[in-house]
């Protein structure tokens, strides 16, 4: 049994279709990254999977149960929302106690877990500090600690490192790796490519649908689009021309050069059109970001 199952999820908000048949699954002991640009439906997917929002179609299952039904399944899952979801006017200690009580964790068990979580998040010295006076990184670590207190089997994190400095970001990921060792299933959404490549598997999501799925390395290895870096020529004229070319699947600047992801088999025709503008096309090795750009149609 998969720990998390999204099967053909559909969810509309008014006229906007946030999810249009999203399907994927996450297993125990795995970090699954839901990767996509802003507005792709990552947050809605996590809200449906945590039971905060009912789907209009398809099914969501956590450990085989309906997350919207409440009760038992909620004791098995944890959520770290994207926005600041702790009580800013309560201290670190008070926030931890509050969430511990919501899950009815026995006092002695709670104290032991609290010590451990404060220790590994290195927040032990700040327990009397109010949550709203913490730095972005400390706050996220506290939110993570609060969502881990009840030792969930499934943990869902919505853009956990949004607004967090690189050092805290590394620490957060180190924490996540520590917990999957215990067989936890982790679903994490992110718009960052470097984070996506830390996941065991990723699902690329675009406009409410999954467009590609697999281990980041495999996705790059199997990528059949030519990638080139353009040098020289009139940059402005080149960019104007690129906009009119359907074979261009993605562009992003790399220093003074322009990186292009080209539809399979179209490399020579693109070269033919760009060379008259004085451009030189140098072949490049595809990376995960190129895969992401081509698959999701996002503009970096």
């Amino acid at each position, binding site marked *: 049994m998969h720990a998390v199952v999204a099967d053909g999820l559909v969810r509309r908000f008014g006229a906007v279709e946030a999810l249009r048949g999203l399907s994927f699954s996450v297993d125990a002991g795995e970090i699954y990254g839901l990767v996509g640009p802003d507005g792709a439906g990552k947050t809605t997917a996590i809200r449906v999977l945590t039971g*905060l929002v009912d789907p209009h179609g398809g099914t969501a299952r956590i450990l085989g149960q309906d997350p919207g039904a409440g009760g038992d399944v909620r004791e098995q899952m944890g*959520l770290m*929302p994207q926005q600041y*979801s*702790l*009580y*800013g006017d*309560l201290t670190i200690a008070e926030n931890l106690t509050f969430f511990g009580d919501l899950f*009815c964790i026995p006092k002695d068990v709670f104290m032991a877990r609290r010590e451990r979580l404060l220790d590994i998040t290195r927040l032990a010295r700040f327990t009397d500090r109010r949550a709203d006076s913490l730095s972005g990184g400390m706050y996220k670590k506290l939110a993570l600690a609060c969502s881990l207190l009840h030792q969930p089997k499934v943990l869902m994190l919505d853009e956990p490192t949004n607004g967090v400095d690189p050092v805290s970001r590394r620490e957060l990921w180190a924490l996540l790796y520590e917990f999957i060792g215990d067989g936890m299933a982790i679903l994490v959404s992110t718009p960052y490519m470097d984070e996506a490549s830390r996941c065991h598997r990723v699902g690329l999501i675009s406009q409410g649908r999954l467009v590609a799925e697999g281990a980041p390395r495999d996705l790059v290895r199997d990528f059949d689009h030519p990638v080139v870096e353009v040098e020289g020529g009139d940059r402005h004229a080149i960019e104007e021309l690129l906009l009119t070319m359907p074979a261009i699947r993605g562009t992003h600047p790399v220093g003074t050069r322009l990186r292009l992801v080209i539809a399979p088999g179209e490399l020579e025709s693109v070269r033919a059109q760009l060379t008259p503008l004085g451009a030189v096309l140098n072949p490049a090795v595809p990376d995960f970001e190129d895969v992401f750009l081509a698959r999701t149609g996002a503009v970096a």
Partner: protein
Amino acid sequence: MRMHAIQLWSIIIKELRQALRDPRMRGQLLIMPIVQLLIFGYAADFTVDHVPTVIVDQDQSSVSRHHVQRLLADGTLDDAGTADEPTANEMIDDGRANAAVIIPPGFARDIDGGRTAMVQVVLDGSNPTRSGIVGGTVGRYFAMAGMELGNPMGGQAVGKKGSVSFQPRVLYNPQMKTQFYIVPGTAAMQLLMATAMLAAMGLAREKELGTLEQVLVSPIPTWVLMLGKTLPFVLIGMFNVLTSMAAGAWLFGVPLHGEPTFLLAATLAYLMSTLGAGLFISTMSNSQQQAFMGAFLFMMPAMLLSGNMTPLAAMPDWLRPFTYLNPLRYYIQVLRGSLLRGAGWAEMWPQFVALAGMGVIILWVSSMRFRKTLA
């Protein structure tokens, strides 16, 4: 059950911590009600006495002086001096006096001769309540004086035809003290304001900040969460009712008749309805600002249609049915009836049923709406 008790307790503690941690909030919750009571109790005092009255005694007899003295004796009218008629009119014009009592020449002679003696009262009508009471006071005094003249020895008027004695007796509030009326009304109103506003803003705040998400994915059932969000304000509301009644009794001598159990139960029912209304408003709002406006939209008509400011009987027919949907209407009746008249379950159970019924319904509807509106 034990689990729900722990969850409920954690929410209550959290709410109380948040509400009482901020000194400004603490002051607003616990001190403001008393301050309001003081302001309304002292400032909105409709009790009419010490009305400055100028005396124009054109008769200048011992009889006229005697009557003037007795007229001023009960304190409703204050002696603003004696003057001639033009000066008296001037004094009323510029506000030094609100009334003038003019005793014409020949007053004593007319009484002696058994003829009808005339007294003129000039009133400043810009405050109708006040001028009405002054007119009544003077009228009553001379009616009484007239009867005494018919029978100067006291006792029954023998051999006089058609003399009717009119003796008003005011029950429950014999001195007609406005505070007896104002204090319960103010207490009920400020309870509405505090609790409905707190409930509406509290939940809207959590929605606005997004702090509910991590709570809602926990195993806590919606009803425990809602209960946990309301009970702290029931506590604070109860505290405010008790302090208001204590302050009313101590400062203004408002009596505390009535059955404590009835008063307690009716207050709980009332708080359920005001908190339920607040929660309902919060389910309709996505931000604190919307909740604030929503709470005002509910509270203003509730106060105007409560019978506290204008009598219910004076409202237009089409408007009156709406007052039956107003918890404040019933609770003001409960407080006045209970505190002043000593009414209890036997007399006021319909008010209790109305409050409890409205409270249960609105809390239930809000609970139902709560989860649906989160998305």
